[in-house]
């Protein structure tokens, strides 16, 4: 599977869930495949999408929050897995698109291309529901489980890097944040 297949599947299974998208390809793809007010795109803060999602999750516990992360970004902020496990918000799903590379900087292999397994790190951090997937069928099953379980959940989805959508024509972080906030009304 690739990232766009994964994002399409996520979008097909949710209604008004809040999504926080990692910077670069995940933001570009989510914007291209399904721009909606409940999407918060990242133009900075590399590594922090799961922390941002945690802040949202504790503030609006009645809403489900989905963080779309990447392997290179999560490797920058591994402590967040332990923080999420300690806080244990039941409405948080953390999905990691693991393409085993820093895609935005030339495709250099990340640590997950070698011996590192982010799903084991998530398990070791104490996240209650952790899945590791490598096909769209496995991802679909894991997503259904996460959507029907008390969270927090973490899905580490191995993907093939198949390119990304063009970035949005206008890069407007503040306008995006305002729209996201207004979507909560």
């Amino acid at each position, binding site marked *: 599977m690739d990232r766009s297949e994964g994002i399409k599947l996520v979008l097909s299974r949710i209604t008004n869930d809040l999504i926080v998208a990692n910077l670069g390809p995940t933001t570009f793809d989510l914007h291209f495949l399904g721009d909606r007010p409940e999407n918060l795109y990242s133009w900075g803060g590399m590594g922090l999408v799961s922390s*941002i999602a*945690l*802040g*949202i999750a504790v503030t609006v516990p009645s809403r489900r929050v989905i963080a779309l992360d990447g392997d290179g970004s999560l490797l920058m902020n591994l402590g967040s897995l332990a923080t999420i496990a300690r806080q244990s918000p039941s409405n948080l799903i953390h999905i990691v698109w693991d393409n085993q590379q820093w895609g935005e900087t030339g495709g250099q292999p990340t640590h997950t291309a070698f011996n590192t397994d982010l799903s084991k790190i998530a398990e070791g951090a104490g996240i209650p529901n952790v899945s590791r997937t490598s096909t769209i069928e496995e991802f679909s099953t894991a997503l259904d489980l996460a959507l029907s379980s008390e969270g927090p959940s973490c899905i580490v989805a191995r993907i093939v890097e198949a390119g990304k959508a063009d970035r949005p024509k206008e890069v407007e972080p503040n306008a995006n*944040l305002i729209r996201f906030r207004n979507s909560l009304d």
Partner: protein
Amino acid sequence: MSWIDNIIAGLKSKNINVISYVPDVVTWKVLKELEADPFFTVIPVAREEESLGVAFGVYAAKGKAAVFMQSSGLGNSINALTTLAIPYSAPFLMFISLRGDLGEFNPGQVAGGKAVRPILDALGIQHYTLDREEKVEEIIKGASELCFNGKEPLALLIPTILTGGKRGSF
């Protein structure tokens, strides 16, 4: 009231109820009270930059957050300020307990402590120093208005002259 009670009263009066932190000896005097108070949702993190991500998320969800850190943690937080909080205009209060301040014993804390205000100035982040116990609550109230109306992060520095530092006195 003590500076500890004054900080808590200031936060409560402005409904700042999500607190994310990496502890130090000084701020723990406040944080342990916050943890015991059901008004607050308190989120300890592993590294300071995370707490800014959490505070950003709280604002995205229409809440109000404050972070607590030691001055050494400001260096760990700069990317979240420059690439997230500032370009998105996302406000939150940052309580920074100063090391490298009066009474410091550790050379390893001096360079970072001295640099706190120049770093904040370079980033254009307004900062106020809580150096008089009787003014602490008032400054927090005013800072909260400024921060959340101005839609910028704002720093409140906790100097050792207020708290006595790590040992409580010099």
